[in-house]
C-alpha cells in the first residue's frame, strides 16, 4: 500500500527515529511502512493519522 508518510515526515523535518519515538514503534517499523514493506495495523494507522491530524485515507492509499 502506498503512503505519504515520508513526505509528511519531511515536511516536519522529523527523522525516522523521531517519528518512531512519537509513535512508540521502532525506527525499522517507520522505515518498513514508508517503503511499503509493511502495511500498518489499524490501531497504528489511527495513531499515525492522529499524529499528523489527518484522516487515514489522506495518508494511505491502496489505489495509488
Amino acid at each position, binding site marked *: 500500500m502506498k503512503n505519504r508518510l*515520508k513526505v509528511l515526515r519531511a515536511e516536519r523535518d522529523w527523522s525516522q527515529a523521531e517519528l518512531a519515538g512519537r509513535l512508540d514503534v521502532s525506527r525499522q517499523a517507520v522505515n518498513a511502512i514508508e517503503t511499503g514493506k509493511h502495511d500498518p495495523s489499524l490501531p497504528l494507522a489511527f495513531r499515525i493519522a492522529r499524529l499528523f491530524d489527518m484522516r487515514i485515507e489522506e495518508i494511505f492509499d491502496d489505489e495509488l
Partner: protein
Amino acid sequence: MTNSDDIPGMAEDDDNSLGARFRRFAVPVLSFAAGLTLLLSGMAWGAIQVAKDNIASIDVAGAMIVGLIGGAIVVATFRKWPTLTQGDPVTPRTRRYGWAMVALIAFSMLITLVFARPSGGGLANDLYSNGPLPTDLAVGAALLWLVSMPLLAAITRRNMDEVERDLLIFGESAGFRFFTTVAPAWWLGYRGGVLPQPDVMILFVGVLIASFIANMARRLT
C-alpha cells in the same frame, strides 16, 4: 509540498541499501553477541575450574578477566543501543523489550552451563552428548526452562512492535516448516535403516537456525 530529499541529513536516514540495513542491525547485535560469548565463556571456564577444585589456579583469574570484559561489552552495548538496533528511539516499551531480550538470551545461555560440567569424558563430550545428568540437576533445569521460557516469550512478544512481531512470526514459521520437513524424513530414514536415530536436540538447534536465518533474511531484504 516538501520533498524529503530536500532536507539535509534525510538522505542518510533514508538509506535503505542492504549494507546500511545490515550495519544498523549487525553492529549492535554482533557487539552484544561478542560480549555475551566472552561473559559466558568466562563463567563456564571458571565453573569448570571450581568443579575441578582448581580454585587457586591462574585459570580462575583468567576466567574472571574474560568474564568481566564480556560483561562490560554487554553493558556498554545495551546502554548505547537499548533495542539492539541503531537509531531506535528509547521509550519505556523499547527498554522493557530490550531487557526481556537480554534476560532471554542470558537465561538460555545459563541453562547451557548446566551441561558444562566436567567428567571423565571431558567438557566437549558433556556439552554435546546425550549422556546422563544427575536427576536433581536435570529436573531442576527442566522445570526452570518450562516456567521461564513461556514467561519471557510472553513479555518479549507483548513489548515488541508490530513489524518486529511480523519478523518473529515469519522466523517461527520457517522453523516450524524446517521441523515438519526434516523430522519425518529423518524418522523414516531411521526406520529404513539408512540414518541414525533422530536426535531431538539436533532438531531443536536446526529449528533455531532456520528461524534465525529466515528472520535475518526478511529483515535485510
